[in-house]
């Protein structure tokens, strides 16, 4: 047993233990605190699986932003917990669910233990085309070139989710500003943090975006960091939460997918069709798309956390 092996065993056990706690915890808030740790541990696991791009995403989105979102929800919903305790499902459902869960887990575990050999991989194929794309990070190449349409459709998913969140506002607040944690009481320390942290965070976010072409990083990770910094500034009250009818806000939200789509349509004039890049401009185009996508992702993620409009629109 090497040190690495011990570390892996410990980490895997820890992940499962925290997961058990999340399912079994007495209060939702305690479960959410567990979830934040869960995300952190998963990020470590991803690093151990040599998937640093994913570790970055998990650290930023899976643990950080999702954790903050769920924490707010858990604390707002706390009054309902004692009431719904009475309607626990019966033993029968527990047994059925347990049997089902054990079956699925056992099936998966069995499959994990008998892997396909040799393990199939597209890594060599992805590597072959990296020089023509002039992008050194294979994950970025997959997201922006080989499987670009998935990334594009996913941007549309994000926009739909945002519209969905906004749609939950009462009619009279449409166009107004999201509520964003109305309980927050900005005090000295919070304001200080919101003044000091974002400059560093923004530099880091831009760095992560920029490094995405050559090393792990990219639009999603950079965007999530920027979103968190923006939220921090808004929570501390240093900048107001924007009203959702603002034209500039709408433009920022769509500029990423719009540029992506435009480049995609432009591909029709090229031999390879939709979403292909002209050979000599591949790298600059990918970088331009990544930059605007980062802006849009940051805005969308931030507003998804901020929630539906809760204030009337200012005339």
């Amino acid at each position, binding site marked *: 047993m090497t040190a690495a092996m011990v570390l892996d065993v410990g980490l895997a056990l820890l992940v499962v233990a925290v997961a058990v706690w999340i399912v079994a915890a007495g209060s939702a808030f305690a479960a959410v605190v567990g979830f934040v740790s869960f995300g952190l541990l998963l990020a470590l696991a991803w690093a151990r699986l040599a998937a640093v791009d994913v570790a970055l995403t998990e650290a930023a989105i899976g643990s950080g932003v999702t954790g903050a979102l769920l924490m707010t929800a858990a604390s707002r919903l706390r009054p309902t917990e004692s009431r719904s305790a009475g309607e626990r499902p019966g033993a029968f459902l527990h047994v059925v669910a347990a049997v089902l869960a054990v079956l699925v887990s056992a099936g998966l575990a069995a499959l994990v233990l008998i892997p396909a050999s040799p393990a199939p991989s597209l890594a060599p194929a992805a590597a072959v085309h990296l020089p023509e794309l002039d992008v050194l990070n294979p994950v970025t190449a997959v997201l922006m070139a080989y499987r670009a349409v998935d990334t594009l459709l996913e941007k549309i998913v994000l926009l739909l989710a945002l519209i969905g969140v906004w749609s939950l506002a009462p009619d009279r607040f449409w166009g107004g500003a999201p509520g964003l944690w109305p309980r927050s009481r900005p*005090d000295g*320390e*919070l304001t200080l*943090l919101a003044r*000091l*942290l974002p400059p*560093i965070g923004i530099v*880091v976010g831009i760095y992560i975006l920029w490094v995405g072409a050559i090393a792990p990083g990219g639009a999603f990770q950079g965007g999530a960091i920027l979103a968190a910094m923006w939220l921090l500034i808004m929570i501390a009250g240093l900048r107001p939460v924007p009203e959702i009818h603002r034209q500039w806000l709408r433009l920022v939200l769509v500029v990423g997918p719009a540029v992506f789509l435009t480049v995609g349509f432009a591909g029709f004039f090229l031999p390879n069709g939709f979403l292909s890049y002209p050979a000599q401009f591949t790298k600059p185009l990918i970088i331009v798309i990544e930059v605007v996508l980062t802006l849009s992702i940051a805005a969308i993620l931030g507003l998804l956390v901020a929630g539906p409009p809760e204030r009337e629109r200012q005339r």
Partner: protein
Amino acid sequence: MRVLFDSFTVLAVSAGAVFFLAGTVGLLRFPDSLSRLHALTKADNLGLGLVVLGLLPQATGPLVALKLITVWLLAQLAGAIVTQLVARAVRRENQEA
């Protein structure tokens, strides 16, 4: 030279690990929230600080070293302010209760 760097790393990282141990023991053993907070900050500041210090000789370039220091500074900044906020929260909680 290499040996010197490496032994420095071993020393600093081990010391950092000890502070993490201390932080955990404190978190588990101390009787009330505020003293537990005290234990936590020791681990935060010194444990991570020593680990970063120990890793600096191993850094492959100035950028990596810069990032290591930034990580520590961030943890300092966030730790200091968050500790304040949590402490205030705990106090408020005690007053209300």
